């Protein structure tokens, strides 16, 4: 990569270089954060509480769900359990990054994990895997840039939520859209697709049966265990498990088949494509 001869050389200013890496993410957090702030305001939280939520929870999906559960007047225990299961995926993300934190102090791991998120995880995972000079401090900096942008979005949304009238049924769809996006990013092979279809049926069944958010949790436990069991059996009884149809990869448009993101099976937003194209441009 070549840098123009500015007065400040980004190569020698890690904070500036990292800001550049985090910028696409920060910019896309703003509008979603504003939508989230508007919903939390409609659910009865003032702007200080919204700011507090955005910092301590720092998860788009969880905050949207929190807003809708507050409006539904769900019991506190149900709110906790739903959010807990929603955030359980971070157990996977955190443990997959843990090998890079072997020499970090406990305090640093605490600080890092507290502001980990799907999207900044995707950036950090890519950087750890491709960039030898990527340090845990850089990774923490990326998280804090995205946190600042997310919290500002929430604050703006909360403040304009009282000033403008917005059709909430439209903003409410942002959550569903966000989850559909995440599902599409998750479906990498045929078995994940089957689990997704199975989950539609089982969540219908459990939601209408229990008439409670616990239905979501039961459905999640059941279908994730089925997926785990199927993969386990295929790996046990097949000679070449990765060549079986069920574990085979699903076709994706060509532009998305870029280097490292194929390996990770997590959300890989456009920032990575830009990063990758920058890396390739540098090679030319």
């Amino acid at each position: 990569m070549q840098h123009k001869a500015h007065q400040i050389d980004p190569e020698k200013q890690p904070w500036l270089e990292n800001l550049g890496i985090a910028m696409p993410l920060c910019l896309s957090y703003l509008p979603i954060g504003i939508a989230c702030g508007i919903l939390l305001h409609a659910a009865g939280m003032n702007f200080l509480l919204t700011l507090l939520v955005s910092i301590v929870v720092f998860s788009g999906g969880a905050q949207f769900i929190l807003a809708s559960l507050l409006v539904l007047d769900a019991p506190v225990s149900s709110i906790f359990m739903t959010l807990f299961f929603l955030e359980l995926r971070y157990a996977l993300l955190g443990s997959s990054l843990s090998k890079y934190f072997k020499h970090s102090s406990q305090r640093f791991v605490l600080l890092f994990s507290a502001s980990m998120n799907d999207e900044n995880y995707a950036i950090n995972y890519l950087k750890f895997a491709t960039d030898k000079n990527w340090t845990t401090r850089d990774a923490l900096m990326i998280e804090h840039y995205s946190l600042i942008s997310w919290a500002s979005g929430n604050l703006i949304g909360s403040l304009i939520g009282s000033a403008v009238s917005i059709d909430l049924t439209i903003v409410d769809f942002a959550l569903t859209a966000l989850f559909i996006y995440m599902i599409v990013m998750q479906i990498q092979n045929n078995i994940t697709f089957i689990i997704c279809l199975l989950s539609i049926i089982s969540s219908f069944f459990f939601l209408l049966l229990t008439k409670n958010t616990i239905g979501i949790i039961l459905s999640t436990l059941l279908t994730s265990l089925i997926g785990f069991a199927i993969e386990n059996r295929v790996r046990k009884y097949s000679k070449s498990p990765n060549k079986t149809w069920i574990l085979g990869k699903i076709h994706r448009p060509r532009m998305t088949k870029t280097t490292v993101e194929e390996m990770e099976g997590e959300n890989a937003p456009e920032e990575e494509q830009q990063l990758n194209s920058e890396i390739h441009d540098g090679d030319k």
Partner: protein
Amino acid sequence: MVNLSNNLVLASMVPSHHNLTYHLIVILLSALAAFIPRYFPMRFFTNRPIPEWFNEWMKYVPVSLFTALVVKGIFVDGKYHLVIDHIHLFGNNLTVYGLASYLIAAVCVALVAYFTRSMLSSVIVGLGVVWLLSVTIGV
């Protein structure tokens, strides 16, 4: 005047017993729910290997969970009944299960996500379609 009526609508949405203390308790519990799955597994695995079964199981949690949440968002209402929507199109009365506008928008979001992999454009297209449907055919 607009502001006043807006506030009245909002006031009716918020259950009456929700006060500052209630919100602070909810925030504290949300913070715990967000913090526990992030910190403890990461802390635990920084100095020991990750068991294979844990990783294999966790791989299927996000897709199962997100699908259940989408089903709840589109097909199930606040009282946990199946949503039945009626749309009037070219003089025909159609009955659909689920919120019609959300269903159509969901397909658009999935297509945009598949082809662009961009979170921002997926969400914006989704909101745009819902808005467009509400102003044109009023679903």
